[in-house]
């Protein structure tokens, strides 16, 4: 392990003014444009990541959010040493990732929902054996870790079936097991639940939480499923067009962008009058079922008024869906403001 100063002990990942540019080839529609482009190609430079500063503490779980093309995966690839930054500095566990020091690579794992480590025509257990050799695990380490991961992920029944014959959910769980055999200190998860059904998404989330509780790796997660982020990460970093637009607690982001809560109420009979001047707005009504948007500080007052009618069949109070909140971050209006 290279010299680790105090800052590095405190933070597992530190980036300073991180930039990554790509040279993209332009091509207009049609055969003539293709021919022109063949002999005189035109390019433009795209800033995938722009002056990104971030610090992630050891053992933290951070959600990395942004729309498609925001620069999330590019950042993960720079942090895992796959891409060399155009400028800026990266420090991961005291290493410079793109120098691809083997000691650094032993401490990280990159799981990509759309790419796989498992050999397609072989049972997962064969890939396990290869990874055991790659990370130089002893017999005892290998036996203990495989047993633990197999139990946690409930994959004992699919280890000896060819990968191509496994369901997507089984494959993803085996993929996670392979990626965690060497107990990485840093886990980069890029869309780990993509394409999975809700039940399997929940299983994966619950496994990740359990794994984090036991081994405390630093986890950086990107996902388009906001439930993943809400379940796993307290802190989120939001980037848009390569720029960091938010870094903080998920609850702060919710309060900042959506200062209201949703109150759903079902009345036995009668009406409920919602007054905007009291910080309450009716957003939907279906018979006796009302959906109200209520300012956070007025929620207790409105709820008390509803209970006082003695006429309530059901009442729930919830935050607006995270998808809506994040979506709001990327609307033209928000971007301009």
């Amino acid at each position: 392990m290279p010299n680790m100063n105090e800052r590095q002990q405190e933070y597992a990942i530190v980036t300073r003014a991180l930039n990554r540019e790509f040279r993209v080839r332009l091509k207009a529609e049609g055969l003539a444009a293709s021919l022109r482009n063949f002999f005189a190609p035109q390019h433009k430079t795209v800033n995938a990541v722009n002056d990104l500063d971030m610090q992630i503490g050891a053992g933290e779980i951070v959600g990395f959010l942004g729309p498609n093309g925001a620069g999330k995966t590019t950042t993960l690839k720079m942090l895992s040493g796959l891409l060399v930054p155009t400028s800026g500095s990266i420090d991961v566990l005291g290493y410079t990732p793109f120098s691809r020091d083997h000691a650094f690579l032993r401490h990280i794992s990159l799981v990509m929902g759309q790419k796989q480590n498992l050999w397609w025509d072989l049972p997962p257990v064969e890939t396990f054996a290869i990874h055991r050799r790659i990370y130089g695990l002893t017999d005892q380490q290998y036996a203990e870790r495989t047993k633990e991961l197999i139990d946690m992920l409930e994959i004992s029944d699919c280890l000896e079936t060819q990968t191509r014959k496994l369901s997507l959910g089984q494959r993803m769980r085996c993929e996670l097991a392979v990626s965690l055999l060497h107990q990485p200190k840093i886990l980069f998860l890029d869309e780990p639940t993509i394409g999975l059904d809700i039940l399997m998404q929940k299983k994966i989330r619950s496994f990740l939480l359990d794994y984090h509780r036991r081994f405390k790796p630093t986890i950086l997660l990107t996902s388009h499923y906001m439930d993943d982020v809400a379940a796993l990460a307290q802190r989120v970093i939001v980037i848009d067009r390569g720029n960091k637009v938010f870094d903080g607690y998920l609850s702060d982001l919710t309060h900042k962008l959506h200062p209201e809560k949703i109150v759903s109420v079902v009345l036995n009979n009668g009406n409920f009058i919602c007054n905007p001047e009291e910080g309450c707005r009716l957003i939907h009504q279906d018979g006796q079922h009302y959906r109200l948007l209520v300012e956070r500080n007025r929620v207790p007052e409105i709820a008390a008024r509803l209970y006082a009618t003695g006429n309530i069949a059901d009442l729930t109070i919830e935050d607006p869906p995270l998808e809506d909140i994040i979506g709001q971050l990327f609307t033209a209006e928000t971007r301009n403001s």
Partner: protein
Amino acid sequence: MQYAVTAIYISSLCLCAFVRYLVFEHDIMRQMAIIVNLWKATVIQAMEYRASFVFAIVANFFDFIFGLLQYLVFFTAAKSIAGWEADHMLVLYGVFMLVFALHFILLYPNLVAMGDMVNSGNLDLLLTKPVDSQLIISFRRISLEELGSIGTATILLGWLLYRGVIVFDIGNFLLFGVSMVSSLLLVYCVFVLLICLAVIMERLDNMSQLLWSLFALCRYPVDIYPDRIRYAFMSFLPVAFIATIPASALLGRSDSATVWHGFAMAVVAVLFCSWLWRRAIGAYTSAGG
């Protein structure tokens, strides 16, 4: 003679430096253990499709026989071609098939897989592993389909030795060994050049076609070509060192200076390719994201 001694000296220095680099800085024994494990997995995978596996071995055996017949047809019309008689040509064919089969077993499946790995982005996962990426990408898969060709080529060369076409001579056999190592290293370097191109250009279809074109040139002795082309094949486009020089060494027709010249070229080419691979990976842009 002085030239040969200098070539041996420089080659030995380069080789020592390279071996030291592999053993001490690249943990070569661990990398080899990983490769053996990957090979086991490839063999198990090949066995999954038994019929295809057996058919490929039979097809390659017949390919060898048809290649042999092609040579014999030439000599129904002429006694010798550019100083190479029919028996000598059989030695060349045996040596060529050995090199070709070894390339097919060790490198070809990796060349085919490389294009897919770059296009699909699966190269990303391999590059985040603590392994020597060049070595693992070069040798992670093997194809046993050409094992039959190695056997048949060895039998052919053994028969030619028995018939006295190849004379048993330690010096010649030593030069043959050195020139075979050079030949395999040079083929490997062409392979590395192609995979580097695939990484840098993000897509390079039909890479194997290029390597096969090179082999098509190696099938015949370079003596059949005009002087200028022959010079090119002995220098910057080392076609002569793939099959002609090893076959000549086995027949006692090659001088040691030429053999060591080829070896020095091969060592320099390997060092250059190792540097080029590091540059290519530095320039890798990865698919998507």
